[in-house]
């Protein structure tokens, strides 16, 4: 069976005048029906850029897609999203792929009521009448756990709290039952208790609708909670992939090891210090030669400075791009 969404060797660059700076290089990832794939990495590593590429929302210029394929397989037809027309892409957005953003405070239009914003999507994709769409909006708000939806549907974004707005965003995103939901840092702007509620809601909605989820986050806790598979990104490349247990419990790449070591744990002895990753992320214009992580890697060797490592698997279904791993390519 083909994957629902498959990205093959995606390359994106930022072009400024005659200069071209690679921002994403050779991104491969696949999302199967109903699965949750986590995409982790620190700010600026290209997580959001990957999501925007799928949605064809890259700010262009300066961003330019240099190569690769993004294949979406729905209703037994496969389409390369990079090749279809704008008009066709518009039917994909919202109906096949939906997206929710980081900040629920700014991702709703302040001049329309919540109900009108949900109805707009339904009217666009399902050809519903306004009255039907508004009725359906009430039902959707109830589904995402908003109390007294009959009143809420008429309220404006500024009248809702952050958590409620994110629930409304989820209602909008899931209104047309998309096959895949891209969530770009969906809980980063929320406080911790609301975070947990929103994550639980996303998981239960995902189960009841069979939606696949591409979850973009820098929060390892969220990954542990939600993801089936994990991809770790560093400076525009995927450096490690595997199931979430494999990656979280036996991280193979020094970068992933560093990320996990820098997190506080409940079972940590008192007084023990967290281990940060040394240095800072180099800018896009100064990507190091060889392995991109060698400037900050505690295990750096000569070969790391000269040659870029290929993905090697350390165990079944778990691979990382590091010279230290001695598995097959």
């Amino acid at each position: 069976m083909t994957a629902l969404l498959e990205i093959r060797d995606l390359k994106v660059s930022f072009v400024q005048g005659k200069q071209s700076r690679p921002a994403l290089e050779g991104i491969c990832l696949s999302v199967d029906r109903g699965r949750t794939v986590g995409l982790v990495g620190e700010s600026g590593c290209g997580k959001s850029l990957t999501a925007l590429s799928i949605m064809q929302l890259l700010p262009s210029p300066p961003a330019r897609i240099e190569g690769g394929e993004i294949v979406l397989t729905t209703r037994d037809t496969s389409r390369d999203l990079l090749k279809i027309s704008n008009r066709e892409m518009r039917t994909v957005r919202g109906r096949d792929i939906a997206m929710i953003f980081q900040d629920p405070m700014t991702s709703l239009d302040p001049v329309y009521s919540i109900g009108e914003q949900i109805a707009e999507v339904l009217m666009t994709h399902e050809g519903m009448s306004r009255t039907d769409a508004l009725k359906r909006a009430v039902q959707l708000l109830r589904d995402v756990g908003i109390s007294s939806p009959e009143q809420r549907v008429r309220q404006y974004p500024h009248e809702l709290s952050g958590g409620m707005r994110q629930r409304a965003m989820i209602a909008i995103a899931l209104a047309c039952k998309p096959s895949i939901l891209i969530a770009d840092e969906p809980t980063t702007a929320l406080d911790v208790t609301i975070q947990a509620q929103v994550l639980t809601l996303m998981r239960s909605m995902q189960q009841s609708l069979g939606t696949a989820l591409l979850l973009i986050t820098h929060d390892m806790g969220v990954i542990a909670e939600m993801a089936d598979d994990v991809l770790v990104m560093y400076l525009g490349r995927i450096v490690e992939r595997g199931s979430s247990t494999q990656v979280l419990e036996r991280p193979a790449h020094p970068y992933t090891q560093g990320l996990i070591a820098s997190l506080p744990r409940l079972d940590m002895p008192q007084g023990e210090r967290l281990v940060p990753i040394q240095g800072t992320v180099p800018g896009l214009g100064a990507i190091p030669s060889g392995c991109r992580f060698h400037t900050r890697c505690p295990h750096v060797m000569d070969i790391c400075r000269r040659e870029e490592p290929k993905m090697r698997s350390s165990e079944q279904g778990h691979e990382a791009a590091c010279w230290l791993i001695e598995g097959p390519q």
Partner: protein
Amino acid sequence: MRRMLASLDTKGAVGFGLVAIVALCAILAPLISPYDPNAQDLLNSVAPPAWAAHGAGGHLLGTDRLGQDVLSRIIYGSRVSLVAAFAAVVASGGIGTFFGLVAGYFGGWVAVLIMRLVDIMLAIPFILIALVFMTVFGPSLTNLVIAFALARWVQFTRIAYGLVLEIREREFISACITSGVSGFDILFRHILINIAGPLLVVATLELGFVILIEAGLSFLGLGTPPEIPSWGGMLQEGRALINVAWWLTTFPGLAIMLTVVGFNFIGDWMRDSFDPRTDIGRSISEQAVAER
């Protein structure tokens, strides 16, 4: 909107009051004006106001050289001023906002083209454009409106362009795109509605400006034809007699001034209420929070 009206300050109330009086005069002109504005009474020409020394009974604000009642002509003149003002602002606002939206949304060479044209238009004195246009096409109300729209759309374009650039980058626009909303709907249903507030403020200020320009052009003999009473036209007719009949220029001048002041006050009040940093704006947003 109800919240906004509740926050009406003195300035706003005065503005609305003045404009309401002018609007009522324009609507009810045949009912409230004491005489036919074009009825000539040569026996009573250049009569001072009724209450002044040697005043002619029955003419509250006096009469002009042809014995026409000044008050009636001012009341009828409000029609020309208001019609010209609203038509001109709707036309220039419509054109200007459209170009601003297009330039801001599409960017690239379209924006460069439109915004350079705006720069050029801004460098030409407006009165010059209006004078040339009215001289070539002849004085009439329609031509005045066209001249105004041709020259003043840039005011709206400049402001709309800046606002679109800001709104376009907001996350809810990306959210709209990701849910498959078409470009047309995003531009007109989401972006336009979000920038409507500041544009309305510009529109009110422009209303006052058109009234001044209409008066100015009529004064130069390029406004409306003399059989249609207009405030600017009255100034022009009264100019020759300014030494002997002060009322011929004073009262139309006052009418112009008060109307323009009225529109400007409304504009100021609207600007304050759309801006959360001012007291009025803050009280509106606080009320909004309190109601939640």
